[in-house]
């Protein structure tokens, strides 16, 4: 039976197990939306308020489920609005499938209404993309797109479908057992290299494991614990590795990087072995590269071969799925402990704690971001999903919420996209409806995608929005204070009445300005059935520390 390309697309998405689409209709994808009208029961469609919201929602969905996040937009501005979200997914290795409508094939290249070279624009920010001009090409393109997005290192793909291909009628044949040869084998590590790596670890005095996003992506949380518990290796996490190890594990020392904890940064350069697990030595983690891990032998596990030696030379690169590599290396590792090494961390932790105590005393009756997040963590039994925006709120959420379960801290780490949290929280809630989902946002980032309150209203998504309002672009202000002699150049914000805005969208909320109201406000916020905005007027000129300033080494980490 012949059917339209648009219907073939619906059937292809169902073949791939798609349940949710985040999208926005427009001229060049109207045939697809017409087909969707008949598939509404099988494919849940979430109408966002701006295409960027669709991309971040798809990311949030993918990050909590491990499945593909799908978005559907029209040509021209629909597609260009998606660009930030695609770039974000590329940087953070998120399996996203973006479907864009395109003008009819006969108009391609003619500067037709709402025509943009989407394949051209998205080439540098996708793992793969293609343009479809005939309905018959759709099934294989979809199969290929889904395969590529999730195999090897995950990433975004774009399928651009011209309007004539959406209308055109043909038979539907979906490819069976489709694969892409290039991505079929991801484990390329050799037994000799595993043995070599194990020997280095077995002979080390100060072994240090750095876990990254790859642990969560490959669901290797259990294997990480097996390796550290057997070897007694100390472990720290990158921003994206957060929640892969329970916060209270005795061998876990905290977060690495620019605003990570003190001891994990300070002692990085003392390690004699670095076991990097699914992380890519981002500049925010390494600080000054030329002074990074001078004494250590580096063992680097990554599924992406091009990450090996990119920033840090690896003595033993192991190419493969993190979970599989850890499973394979475990038998070669000897039982050991490194209590003296761990003790060095504990000693420095006391220094950080002392500064922390001082800070708490100073802020005793004040509303600060750390107070709010610490209390939120306690009141939610450390079990919620925190979707953090970008800036100070992101770092406070990373450091003061105590992550117990995997996939609980979701943020834009690589691209650092302000406005990420609100739409990503929508996707996360749809992907994990049984978990409590909180979006932590600042007053700057909130206003970058604030229109998604409309989506939350329409879909009745019970998302909790924690707005930490300091009336500044806080992270930039902090840098202006520390490195630009307090010249607060265009970082102050005159803000609207956020509670009233939420109210207009039918979303309940409360604003608090006093420390003594926090406890009760948080209880109401957490227990409210339905979406809720809690605005906390926090200290205006508060800073996040420790800090590894740009251009300095990780062992020069500042406590205050």
């Amino acid at each position, binding site marked *: 039976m012949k059917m339209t390309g648009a219907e073939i697309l619906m059937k292809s998405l169902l073949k791939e197990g798609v349940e949710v689409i985040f999208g926005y209709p427009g001229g060049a994808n109207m045939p697809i939306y017409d087909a969707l009208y008949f598939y509404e029961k099988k494919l849940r469609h979430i109408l966002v308020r701006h295409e960027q919201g669709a991309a971040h929602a798809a990311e949030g969905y993918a990050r909590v489920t491990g499945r593909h996040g799908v978005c559907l937009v029209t040509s021209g501005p629909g597609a260009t609005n998606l660009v930030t979200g695609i770039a974000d997914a590329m940087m953070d290795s998120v399996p996203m499938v973006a479907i864009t409508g395109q003008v009819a094939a006969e108009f391609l290249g003619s500067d037709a209404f709402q025509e943009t070279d989407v394949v051209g624009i998205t*080439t540098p920010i996708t*793992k793969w993309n293609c343009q479809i001009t005939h309905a018959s090409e759709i099934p294989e393109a979809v199969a290929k797109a889904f395969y590529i997005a999730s195999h090897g290192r995950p990433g975004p793909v774009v399928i651009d479908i011209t309007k004539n291909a959406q209308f055109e009628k043909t038979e539907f044949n979906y490819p069976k057992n489709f694969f*892409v040869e*290039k991505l079929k084998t991801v484990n390329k590590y050799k037994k000799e290299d595993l043995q070599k790596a194990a020997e280095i670890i077995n002979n080390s005095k100060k072994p240090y494991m750095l876990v990254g996003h790859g642990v969560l992506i490959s669901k290797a949380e259990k294997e990480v614990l097996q390796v550290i518990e057997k070897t007694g290796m100390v472990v720290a996490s990158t921003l994206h590795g957060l929640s892969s190890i329970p916060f209270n594990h005795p061998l876990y020392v905290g977060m690495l990087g620019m605003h990570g904890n003190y001891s994990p940064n300070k002692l990085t350069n003392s390690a004699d072995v670095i076991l990097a697990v699914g992380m890519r030595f981002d500049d925010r983690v390494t600080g000054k590269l030329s002074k990074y891990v001078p004494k250590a032998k580096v063992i680097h596990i990554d599924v*992406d071969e*091009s990450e*090996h*030696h990119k920033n840090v030379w690896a003595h033993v690169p192991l190419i493969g799925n993190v979970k599989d590599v850890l499973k394979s290396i475990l038998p070669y590792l000897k039982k050991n402990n490194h209590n003296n090494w761990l003790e060095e961390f504990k000693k420095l932790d006391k220094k950080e704690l002392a500064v922390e105590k001082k800070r708490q005393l100073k802020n005793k009756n004040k509303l600060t971001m750390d107070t709010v997040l610490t209390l939120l963590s306690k009141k939610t039994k450390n079990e919620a999903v925190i979707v953090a925006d970008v800036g100070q709120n992101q770092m406070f959420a990373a450091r003061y919420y105590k992550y117990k379960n995997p996939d609980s801290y979701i943020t834009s780490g690589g691209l650092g996209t302000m406005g990420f949290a609100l739409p990503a929280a929508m996707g996360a809630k749809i992907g994990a409806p049984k978990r409590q989902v909180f979006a932590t946002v600042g007053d700057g980032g909130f206003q970058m995608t604030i229109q998604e309150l409309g989506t939350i209203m329409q879909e009745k998504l019970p998302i909790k929005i924690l707005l930490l309002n300091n009336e500044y672009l806080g992270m930039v202000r902090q840098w202006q204070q520390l490195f630009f002699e307090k010249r607060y150049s265009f970082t102050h914000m005159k803000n609207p009445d956020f509670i009233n805005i939420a109210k207009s969208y039918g979303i309940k909320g409360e604003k608090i300005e006093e420390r003594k109201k926090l406890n009760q406000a948080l209880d109401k916020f957490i227990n409210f059935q339905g979406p809720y905005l809690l605005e906390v007027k926090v200290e205006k000129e508060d800073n996040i520390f420790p800090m590894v300033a740009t251009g300095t080494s990780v062992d020069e980490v500042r406590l205050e």
Partner: protein
Amino acid sequence: MTKSDLNNMRYTIDIVVENKPGVLYRITGLLAKRKINIERINVFAVKGNGISKMFFTADIEDRIVDTVVKQINKIIEVIEINYHKANH
């Protein structure tokens, strides 16, 4: 001659790719984003088997050439890639 010029070596990168639109763009994009200028390029389709061969010559810093080649090798349509120091 600046210091960075001294660290640049002339390399030739030989690539076998699926003969599809946009592949050359993807490869040259990866070079352009690192400000690598192509000194010579030769591309031709191999008759009958759906592949193309590409030869690039460019001055590339020694410390990044391996990563650049590996990044090109991530492109789905790239079938085979080799690089070596050019004679001229």
